[in-house]
């Protein structure tokens, strides 16, 4: 084999091994604290993560419906950018109002 093809193979193998090492490093470094998280959620009994706290219908998204965004004022539609990321909960059954999911 020529020099250049050896270099090429070397680069490919190096990249693949960097990837494998990185994956191993990250999986070892990340502590898996699922039991603590489950304990916390069973204590609090509230759904959804505390990532997006700008609006109540984003913070507890699973307990709100498509109409929760209107509860403050109809003019506040799509006020927060995070409503473009998270989809409104499709929880329209058992809701005492007539809504069709968009």
């Amino acid at each position, binding site marked *: 084999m020529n020099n250049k093809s050896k270099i090429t193979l070397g680069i490919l193998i190096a*990249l693949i091994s960097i990837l494998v090492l990185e994956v191993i490093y990250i*999986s070892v470094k990340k502590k898996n604290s699922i039991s603590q*998280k*489950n304990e916390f959620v069973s204590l609090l009994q509230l759904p959804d*993560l505390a990532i997006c706290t700008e609006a109540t219908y984003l913070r507890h998204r699973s307990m709100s419906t498509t109409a929760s965004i209107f509860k403050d004022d109809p003019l506040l539609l799509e006020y927060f950018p*995070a409503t*473009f990321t998270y989809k409104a909960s499709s929880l329209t059954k058992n809701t005492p109002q007539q809504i069709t999911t968009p």
Partner: protein
Amino acid sequence: MEYAMNALFRQKYKSIFILIIFTSLIFLLTSVFFISNAIKYELHSTVESLPEITVQKIQAGRQQNINVNVIEKILEIAGVQDAVGRVWGYYYFQNAGVNFSVMGIDEFENQSTQSLENIVQKSDFDKAMENDSMIVGEGVKRILQDNYYKEYFNFIKPNGTLKQVNIQGTFSSNTQLESNDVILLAKQTALEIFGMNEEEVTDIVVKVANEKEISMIASKIKLLLPDTRVITKEDFKVSYKNIFDYKSGVFLALFIVALFTFFIVIYDKSSGLSSEEKREIGILKAIGWTVDDVLKEKFYESFILSFVAYLLGVILSFAFVYIGQAPILREIFVGYSQLKTSFELPFVFDVQTLFLSLFLTVPVYIAATIIPSWKSATIETDEVIR
């Protein structure tokens, strides 16, 4: 393969440009998918701890407080193990412009010595349970400390008076994604802070022993109390599954832009070869290369370029999301929230995303390179050199 490498180095700038574009595209797409899948994984890993049934009162499309008398009616339904009224809500801290989620639970004092030991870091000072006390999330602690509230906090009640509550402890940082903005205190304190009277609760949580009976009991509660919304654990699971809509919003914008960029590069590659490249192929054929050899060389050339771009993109993406906590991309998921959590996402080795990005980019680029080369390789040699 040597010839392929030489060809790449001969067109150094063009190769580097295509490499950078592909690496950036793959990096961006895989990062967004990693973040969204990690969030979904985090949600799914805690869904079993959620209550079986939650009952909310809805009036005029808005959630209202529910009367505690309703709890007795619910307890009479067969299959219901327990029904507990909860007091929780949001407290807006004006100085910092943040919303705290405030939750009041019964028997707070008993709780804090037993089951909370695992998830609460005790504070340094020793404020016992003589006065009202609370346990806060790390984000709350940070905000309060920035506003000079180190050991206690003054809630402003609806009647304008202040209520001082001592900070007893902080939730463990391992639970930060769930507990960052949470304040946990005794139910009585929560009622005072929200100005609710003793006969009102925010919603009711129903415990059902047999999982299979949940939907039946939920429909019974709905018949019994027509002005309520009944949410089951199954509804939470469905809601978690549908949290990201890849056909609208930010994701749609991202995919359209990425697809557009990708196809511009592909179109440029596949819209025929330049006369220089055609002559190159003609010369190779003249010195004895067969069509197969030419195609093999073109395959190596495009495979090396696209596969290296793919590997680089994925490596950078892993480092960006899981080691660097996705500095700019996380703003898409965090939004305007003033109360920022550390974006320590759980590690999910998402094989689906990796294979999707591999098979969408590498074979398409190889095909876009080989097909025009095959076309010009099958033309007569002397025509091409002329």
